[in-house]
């Protein structure tokens, strides 16, 4: 098989020139998905409808073609989509079929995208390794004994393995950026409220946000153009102008100011990650940006605050799974109480139960002030420190993760060690600001990522910086198994 374009941009050019049809592209993606089944990247593959959508895209009159016409995309199995099951990686929703499409699914489809299927994920998006799925762990295409990161594990693995040029994930505490870093991809968590959460199964509603994952910043811009914008069905989506992110990519970064947070770099960071941040700093300097120190003194308290707030919100959100209206119901319930207890006990996996119990504890009488309110106060301090920093800089450069992808099974017995993986990604969720992870190096055959964080609704500048970085470097061009790796 000749090499087909593996980016959205490349695929769009091949479609526009008539060199390839959407059917060719989609058939090739389906073949790659089939060949990579051992990676466990997909929960459901929607082959028949994808081929129909590809044929429709090929036959669509030029005037009716949207910006994603005929381009194959996969979505995390947390987005409700009709005609295919929506599981959230849980036994609770193993057979559940959503009665409606999420807003982002509607928008992708309206733009002409061909949706290939639903990708594997940590159950209810709770995890940093992809190992918490009821449907089994996903493997990292760069090294199959390592995790792809989580919770958008299948989306990251599917793109990295060349099964699909781009995928959607969700990010509550790092679930787009950490797997993007572990799999050599570029991934963006937009500003809270930038993208509608309607039809996205809720984990922690004040933190959850959907975003794109792909090889490079140009592809993210293409997807964000389609995804972003207010939606009256999500009252937390914000009615803020959506710029043309693609048009903004090529602006010069000369004169932009990038903050380097000494407080974060003082954390426990692997030497290779630290070196990747340092090398990235030099690239930005060579492009004419200036580097200035910024202070984020409370950012490292983000992990403990997050592991109160996110479980507290999850314990409330997941109360809806009661075995009555949808999802798993235990066999032969003896009473309503028995129905609740056993349906939830059987339907949820260990990590989900752990977080529901943690959240219930934090919200219970006698602990609310000491845990929940203290965490919300830390949240304000962290947000205000970011806002103060962004009065002086355009973006902040930081590690995405403390280390490259760890081995499968390495951290499954130690929930706290797993939680500390999110130390660099959580602050952006608490502050509601956008953050992008992009490839910045390799170590022992595994990719390393660095993160760019920006002010609320500053996605455009992050994409512009990442695009300039990717014009000057080749980290985002490396592929698993290639000599360049």
């Amino acid at each position, binding site marked *: 098989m000749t090499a087909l374009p593996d980016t959205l941009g490349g695929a769009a050019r091949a479609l526009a020139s008539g060199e390839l049809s959407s059917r060719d592209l989609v058939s090739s993606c389906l073949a790659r998905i089939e060949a990579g089944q051992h990676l466990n990247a997909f929960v459901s593959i929607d082959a028949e409808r994808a081929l129909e959508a590809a044929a429709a895209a090929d036959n669509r009159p030029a005037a009716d073609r949207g910006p994603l016409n005929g381009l194959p995309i996969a979505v995390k199995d947390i987005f409700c989509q009709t005609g295919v099951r929506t599981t959230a990686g849980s036994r609770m929703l193993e057979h559940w079929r959503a*009665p409606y499409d999420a807003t982002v699914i509607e928008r992708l489809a309206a733009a002409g995208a061909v949706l290939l299927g639903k990708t594997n994920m940590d159950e209810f998006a709770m995890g940093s390794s992809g190992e918490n799925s009821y449907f089994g762990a996903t493997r990292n295409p760069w090294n199959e004994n390592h995790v792809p990161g989580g919770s958008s594990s299948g989306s990251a693995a599917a793109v990295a393995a060349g099964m699909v040029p781009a995928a959607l994930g969700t990010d509550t505490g790092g679930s787009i950026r950490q797997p993007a870093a572990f799999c050599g991809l570029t991934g963006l968590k937009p500003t809270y409220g930038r993208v509608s959460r309607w039809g996205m199964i809720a984990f922690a509603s004040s933190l959850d946000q959907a975003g794109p994952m792909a090889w490079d910043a140009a592809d993210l811009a293409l997807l964000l153009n389609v995804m972003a914008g207010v939606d*009256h069905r999500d009252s937390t989506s914000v009615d803020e102008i959506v710029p043309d992110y693609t048009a903004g990519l090529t602006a010069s970064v000369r004169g932009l100011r990038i903050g380097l947070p000494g407080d974060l770099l003082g954390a426990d960071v692997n030497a290779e990650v630290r070196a990747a941040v340092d090398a990235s700093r030099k690239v930005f300097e060579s492009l004419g940006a200036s580097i200035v120190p910024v202070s984020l003194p409370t950012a490292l308290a983000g992990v403990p605050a997050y592991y109160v707030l996110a479980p507290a919100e999850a314990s409330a959100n997941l109360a809806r799974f009661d075995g009555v209206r949808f999802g798993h119901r235990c066999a032969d*319930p003896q009473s309503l109480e028995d129905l609740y207890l056993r349906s939830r006990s059987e339907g949820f996996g260990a990590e989900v139960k752990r977080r529901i*119990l943690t959240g219930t504890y934090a919200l219970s009488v006698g602990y609310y002030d000491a845990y929940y309110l203290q965490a919300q106060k830390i949240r304000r301090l962290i947000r205000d420190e970011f806002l103060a920093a962004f009065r002086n800089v355009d973006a902040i450069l930081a590690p995405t993760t403390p280390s490259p992808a760890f081995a499968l099974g390495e951290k499954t017995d130690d929930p706290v060690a797993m939680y500390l993986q999110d130390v660099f990604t959580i602050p952006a969720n608490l502050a509601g600001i956008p953050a992008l992870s992009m490839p910045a190096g390799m170590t022992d055959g595994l990719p390393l990522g660095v993160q760019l964080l920006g002010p609320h609704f500053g996605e455009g500048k992050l994409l512009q910086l990442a695009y300039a970085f990717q014009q000057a470097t080749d980290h985002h061009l490396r592929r698993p198994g290639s000599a360049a790796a």
Partner: protein
Amino acid sequence: MAIDAEQVRRIAHLARIGLAADEADRYIDDLESILTMVERMHAVDTSGVTPLAHPIDVSQPLRPDRVTESDQRDAYQADAPAVANGFYLVPRVVE
């Protein structure tokens, strides 16, 4: 942070999660280590800080109170575990 089996059982009951005996023991250790990590936030001085519930400073948008949804009961109940005559079925609650 000391948690005992009784506390775990109480929380599990509040959350309506049934735990087997050996499962409860495992969650004692997990919750203790999670709460010990969480306690680190008490080192941060937050006196005088107002709690933040939502990261973006916008007020709740309002819209005209018009019916925009059609009746989709059958579609929504198509995936319910047990329904009859448009009702969700559960074990008898009132004798």
